[in-house]
């Protein structure tokens, strides 16, 4: 192996060879290491994603679970009419769906941005 060859010289290193040397994510290998830092990096990704999920689930659960509860606590609400139609028909027959769909779309966008930020983080180091 000629020392003068610059390409060959690059392969002689003290560290273990990295198969992904030329990828744009220098910090990626940290994730795959069994040490505390890699674990923490993974946990931070999972926490961020779980946070985005809970930010959608909690309003959705409140939205859905609140109406039956209120109908039991305030019986007048159970037989309430709006414009001659029962409130239950307006809520259950369609009214609950738009907020649920919007929450879903908001989550798709937020999770996309979140993963983009994580990818940027891996590019940095």
């Amino acid at each position, binding site marked *: 192996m000629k020392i003068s060859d610059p390409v060959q010289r690059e392969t002689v290193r003290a560290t273990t060879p990295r198969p992904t040397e030329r990828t744009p994510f220098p910090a990626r290998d940290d994730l*795959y290491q069994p040490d505390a830092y890699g674990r923490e990096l993974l946990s931070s990704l999972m926490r961020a994603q779980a946070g985005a999920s809970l930010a959608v689930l909690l309003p959705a659960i409140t939205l859905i679970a609140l109406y039956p509860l209120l109908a039991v606590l305030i019986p007048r609400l159970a037989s309430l009419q709006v414009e001659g139609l029962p409130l239950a028909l307006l*809520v259950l027959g369609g009214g609950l*769906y738009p907020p649920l769909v919007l929450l*879903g779309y908001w989550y798709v966008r937020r999770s*996309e941005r979140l993963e983009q930020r994580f990818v940027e983080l891996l590019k940095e180091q």
Partner: protein
Amino acid sequence: MNQPATIVAIAAVTIATAIIGARGVRIARTPDDFLVAARQVPTLLNASAISGEYLSAASFLGIAGLAMLEGLGALWYAVGYAAGYLVLLVAVAAPLRRFGAYTIPDFAEGRLDSALLRRVATGVVLLICGFYLLPQLKGAGLTLQIAFGGPQWIGVIVLGVVVTLGIASGGMKGITFVQAFQYWLKFTALAIPAFALLLFFQHPPVANITSATPITFSHRTTVSFPQSEDMSVNANVWVHAVGTIDGQARHGLVELSPGPQIVLAGSKLTFPGGAKAPSVSSPQLTAQEWNSPLLRLNGQPDHQLAATYGILLATVLGAMGLPHILVRFYTNKDGQAARRTTAFVLLLLAFFYIFPAIFAVLGRLEAPSLYVSGQTDSVVLVLPRIASAGIAGTLLGALVAAGAFAAFLSTSSGLLISMAGALSHDIMGKGVKAFRGSAICIGAVMTMIGIFVLGISINVLVGWAFAIAASTFCPLLLLGIWWRRLTWKGALAGLILGGGASSLAVVATMLGAGKSGWPAVLLGEPAIWTVPLAFATMIGVSLVTPRAVPQDVTQKLLALHLPERVRLPNRGNALRQYPVA
């Protein structure tokens, strides 16, 4: 009732399904094609296919019928069926796709390194799908009986043969197109009749459902009784009767007095216009009771909040545990595509579930004869013909029958694919031949079982499938994806305890235990306690068996959560067990 238009419509759906399905035969060559359609299905197509597969007999016929019978509270079923996809979207869709396993048993083994757990999960797949498939076959039997007359088993065999041959020949590539086509068919088949009935046909003002007057026949109406019913009469009424009432053969004018009357199968009663409609089994609900937003279990106002939450828990969490739905997530390109597809599914379902509510309201206003004969489940099928005697009613009736048949076809196909996939991967060996053989075996066996369980209610069986799915695969997926310390021992204990408890509860209900009060709620809606039980078992047993946590759990979590573009080559999919051909 022999309806040529209906027969033509059902035949057209079946032929269109066969043609679209056959298009896939040329493309499907490897087991991979058969199972996940080579993972290259565009978002809208895939979302339509998932929705098409999901909207079964329960959604197309059952919700409208149940809401007509037991009140608007039954619409919580629809809300739960749709909201389940929001949970699926935020907690399961992307990680499951990224993990790169095909089926739930694949996921269980890949995540927790246990062949035993895999076999138990396969058993749960067959259980859930089996009990979901039977009501579809029964629904087909009912629909064809209304169209053709004759015995119900004919419809069961027709559906069984069409679905089995379709899958054994085309695999899932063809089925993806079929399912997408059938979502739009089902949507059209409910939307057009609903708008037509609401806007173009005469009906009592919709605001009448809030008025205190009891339901009456708007004109002279003949009610046929296909099965014997325990009819409860509200007020004295003279009817023209042909048949047997309270053990007496009648032919001519009879005065019915208030109270219960047993009407035998085959009887016909003709009520005068303006008469108050009697009801079957339980007393007729008042307008206020019917308009309540709380679920009435078996028509009774017992512990309504618990019953409502029980149904919501089962449907919202059960949706993610349906094996035939989850297998579709591998047809997405990557995790983010799986999220977009799921969000689209939520939108498509939200549009669809507006229509069962319309049918329930119009049914209550226009078709009191269904209360009398106990046939509210058929409200979607018969309402167009009740509302309009002319050609329009006939054509709309044919359209909904075709949509109903599409519902049975698409859901049965998805279920059969999952069962055949599970059986061929885990028991019969891999490859196209094994998949085809499994599909034919299971199709034949399920069709035969379907003939013998025609007496069991559609809603009981579908409810059972959702309750078991919510008590088994839901905790397995949520904990497996989000909790590092889950062990195969914990998962196994949770699957057995959750699945066993929910199955026993529903079997007890079917055998007649728990008619009212808390037993009815806890046995009839077991999810309210079996889901927490399954979660607690999985977490508790996992915590006391920390040594059973897989050694490479970090690698597995990376495979679940790391976006595809930052993965190390050859590591992200290290858990995939079958090479992509």
